[in-house]
């Protein structure tokens, strides 16, 4: 039922892998042509694979050599950083399932990954940016060499021809910078003027052009009115620092985005489509057409709005309306895209697909919320625009003021004002910090869905934990089994495991494990397995908060079996079992009239749980535990964790949990919810920030703000710490940007700021903001 379990065979169809492939570029084709085997006829295809679990460059080299050794694969390039691989292969000799299985056999998780054209474009963009920066940077270095002799009063002691030579050389090397490297700024300024908008590109462009043409005038009219100093050094330095800053930001942004979208939504999910009465083909959800008949398994989500053909089932629509109560659906009722099938596998006929479904519109709303900028960035943007207008005005006024005295001075002062003011530091302050932060976390396996999460994390003052699977380990150990006299132990195990197979709940998963066959000899275990083969569960149903149910034909009787908490038992049917039940996590098997058996589990707390609770308390956070489990169990856990009575709540339904969070929020608290998606989906959506671990349900991972791939509660503390650090850096950046402008503009207006100093100042202020943000990429020196 997990993504890893699915076989990859359905991806071998051409219509499937085409989505993840692209044609080769000319140099790639030329390179690989030589490696083509003599009998190959078809074209070479380039496809993109996403790989999880590669920790270092060595892992990626292992995968690379493995892929290259497969028949039909001409080349493979694996990148550990972006968790992507490109594979060059011949469709006639190789299949996607072959490579994906090979990678999985090495111990990684792989899948085809969308976005290969996007990758190509981003990669070309990155190269161009780097190239522009390098051109500006190297030309700058040489131009500074030409300008250095002219500093100070050497002007008066050098012969004019040498001076002219140096000016000329500076001009030649500034040309590539002006014509090529500065294009992005000129283009931006042009768009601004066309659309009557204001952005940083406009003052930068004007300043650059002023400086360059003034220096040109000095070079070609040495004895004219423009004076004797050229400013090619300022100009090129200014350009290279700006371009360097942009390149760094581009890289950071790509690193973060690359990590984020590798996880979800790009991975193909298969659904079965009916071809004939008994034959089904697995296709990706993108290929669904209206009026297709699809089969949706238990716990799969419906990929489209559809009509239910049969049989009747229960669906969970919590993602759509927040109601966590299962809704019964019978034949001819409508099911909505995005809701989950809780019951047996059903057949549906598709009505609406893709963007016309209600799910799609909800997703779009969520995505828009995600793409919206953090509040603090919006404020900075609002201030930046009038600021730029004011700067342009100041420059103009200063030019008019100084013109009577000397035209050169006027132009120089104006260009100083334009160059030195740095609204770019203002608009860089927030995004650079947020992106650096998200990138740092992504590298450590913490994925934030959007940048606003960091801001909200900083404001959290209450942390709520789910109990089972979050505070306790995901896998439970079976401790004890009790069976009623009506059933042998073997029969009990067989029936239970047959039923538990259909549910991904942690307790059911623990029942399915080999290690759970306790107290049985080898021979008995074989008997259990044989018996399971003959058991077929029909009408499977999941009742959230209570258990699972199914009917089975056993010993010539049709029984309704239930497996779940004590709430699923018929009243008064549970024998006392000598009080063994009180302390343990438990699951009971019963029919609708009698009890059949009980399983008691050892629930282990995560080792770091106590430490994390203490740390949270010391830092002043409010803590609560929400659990659907019995009061005695919750009491035991909270004692072990140092949580007080009134802070631990037991026997809560998912709706109860949501109400409690809302009441906390009504009191003015900002709540962080840490859960695993089982029975707490609406709560995850309702909290201010929600955090789940990688072992949570896929749906929970899509709803939560923050997914932590390392199964340790310590990361809750780390995330909170990191958010505080980030916001601190953002504030520092903003203060620096403001103070810098406040000091430098008056200086420039009064003519005290020579052009080169202006260029240096501007570059340094942007660099300062960028470097300060980069600190977030480094490990903190103390916790």
């Amino acid at each position: 039922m997990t993504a890893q379990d699915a076989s990859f065979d359905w991806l071998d169809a051409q219509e499937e892998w085409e989505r993840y492939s692209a044609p080769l570029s000319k140099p790639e084709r030329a390179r690989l042509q030589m490696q083509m085997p003599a009998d190959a006829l078809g074209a070479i295809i380039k496809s993109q694979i996403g790989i999880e679990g590669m920790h270092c460059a060595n892992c990626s080299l292992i995968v690379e050599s493995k892929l290259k050794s497969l028949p039909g694969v001409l080349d493979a390039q694996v990148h550990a950083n972006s968790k992507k691989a490109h594979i060059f292969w011949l469709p006639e000799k190789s299949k996607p399932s072959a490579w994906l299985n090979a990678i999985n056999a090495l111990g990684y998780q792989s899948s085809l990954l969308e976005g290969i054209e996007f990758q190509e474009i981003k990669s070309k963009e990155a190269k161009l940016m780097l190239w522009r920066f390098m051109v500006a940077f190297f030309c700058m270095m040489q131009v500074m060499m030409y300008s250095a002799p002219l500093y100070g009063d050497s002007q008066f002691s050098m012969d004019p021809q040498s001076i002219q030579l140096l000016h000329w050389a500076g001009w030649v090397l500034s040309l590539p910078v002006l014509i090529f490297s500065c294009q992005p700024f000129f283009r931006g300024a042009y768009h601004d003027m066309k659309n009557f908008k204001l952005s940083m590109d406009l003052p930068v462009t004007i300043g650059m052009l002023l400086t360059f043409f003034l220096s040109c005038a000095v070079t070609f009219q040495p004895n004219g009115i423009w004076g004797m100093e050229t400013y090619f050094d300022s100009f090129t330095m200014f350009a290279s620092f700006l371009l360097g800053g942009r390149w760094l930001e581009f890289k950071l942004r790509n690193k973060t985005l690359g990590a984020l979208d590798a996880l979800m939504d790009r991975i193909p999910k298969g659904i079965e489509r009916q071809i004939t009465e008994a034959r089904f083909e697995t296709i990706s959800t993108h290929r669904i057409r209206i009026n297709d008949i699809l089969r949706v398994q238990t716990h799969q989500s419906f990929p489209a709005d559809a009509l239910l053909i049969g049989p009747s089932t229960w669906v969970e629509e919590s993602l759509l309306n927040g109601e966590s109560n299962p809704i019964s659906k019978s034949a001819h009722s409508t099911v909505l895209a995005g809701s989950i099938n809780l019951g047996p596998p059903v057949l549906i006929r598709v009505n609406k697909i893709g963007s016309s479904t209600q799910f799609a519109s909800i997703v779009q709303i969520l995505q828009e919320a995600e793409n919206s900028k953090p509040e603090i960035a919006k404020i900075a943007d609002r201030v930046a625009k009038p600021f730029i207008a004011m700067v342009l005005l100041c420059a103009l006024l200063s030019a008019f003021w100084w013109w009577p005295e000397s035209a050169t001075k006027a132009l120089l002062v104006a260009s100083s004002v334009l160059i030195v003011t740095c609204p770019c530091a203002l608009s860089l302050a927030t995004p650079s910090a947020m992106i650096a932060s998200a990138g740092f976390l992504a590298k450590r396996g913490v994925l934030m869905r959007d940048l606003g999460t960091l801001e909200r994390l900083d404001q959290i003052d209450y942390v709520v934990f789910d109990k089972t699977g979050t505070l306790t380990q995901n896998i439970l150990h079976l401790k004890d089994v009790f069976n009623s006299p009506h059933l042998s132990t073997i029969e009990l195990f067989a029936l239970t495991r047959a039923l538990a197979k259909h549910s991904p709940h942690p307790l059911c998963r623990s029942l399915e494990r080999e290690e759970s066959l306790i107290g049985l000899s080898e021979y008995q275990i074989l008997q259990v397995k044989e018996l399971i083969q003959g058991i077929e569960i029909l009408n499977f149903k999941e009742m959230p908060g209570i258990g699972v149910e199914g009917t089975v034909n056993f010993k010539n009787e049709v029984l309704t079996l239930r497996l779940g908490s004590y709430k699923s038992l018929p009243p008064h049917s549970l024998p006392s079992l000598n009080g063994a039940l009180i302390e343990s996590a438990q699951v009971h098997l019963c029919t609708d009239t009698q009890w059949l058996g009980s399983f008691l589990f050892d629930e282990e707390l995560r080792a770091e749980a106590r430490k994390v609770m203490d740390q949270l308390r010391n830092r002043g956070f409010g803590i609560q535990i929400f659990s659907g489990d019995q009061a005695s169990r919750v009491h035991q856990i909270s004692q072990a964790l140092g949580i007080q009575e009134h802070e631990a709540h037991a026997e809560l339904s998912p709706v109860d949990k949501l109400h409690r969070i809302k009441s906390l929020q009504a009191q003015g608290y900002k709540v962080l919810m840490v859960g695993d998606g089982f029975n707490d989906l609406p709560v995850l959506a309702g909290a201010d920030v929600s955090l789940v671990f990688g072992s949570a349900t896929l749906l929970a991972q899509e709803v939560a703000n923050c997914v932590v791939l390392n199964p340790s509660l310590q990361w809750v503390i780390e995330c909170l710490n990191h958010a505080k650090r980030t916001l601190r850096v953002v504030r520092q950046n903003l203060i620096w940007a403001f103070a810098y402008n406040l000091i430098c503009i008056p200086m420039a207006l009064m003519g005290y700021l020579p052009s080169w100093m202006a260029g240096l100042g501007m570059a340094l202020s942007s660099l300062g903001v960028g470097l300060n943000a980069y600190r977030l990429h480094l490990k903190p020196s103390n916790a």
Partner: protein
Amino acid sequence: MDILYLLIPLSVVLVLLILLALWWAIYSNQFDDLEQESERILKND
């Protein structure tokens, strides 16, 4: 200081050559993945 009339234009040409070499490096993917390539030497086979 007549030699300057040779040296300075020569330095301009030198910078242009350097830029050419940089262009080759960037567009033949030398800068794409710095960590992985350095570890390639340490690989066992």
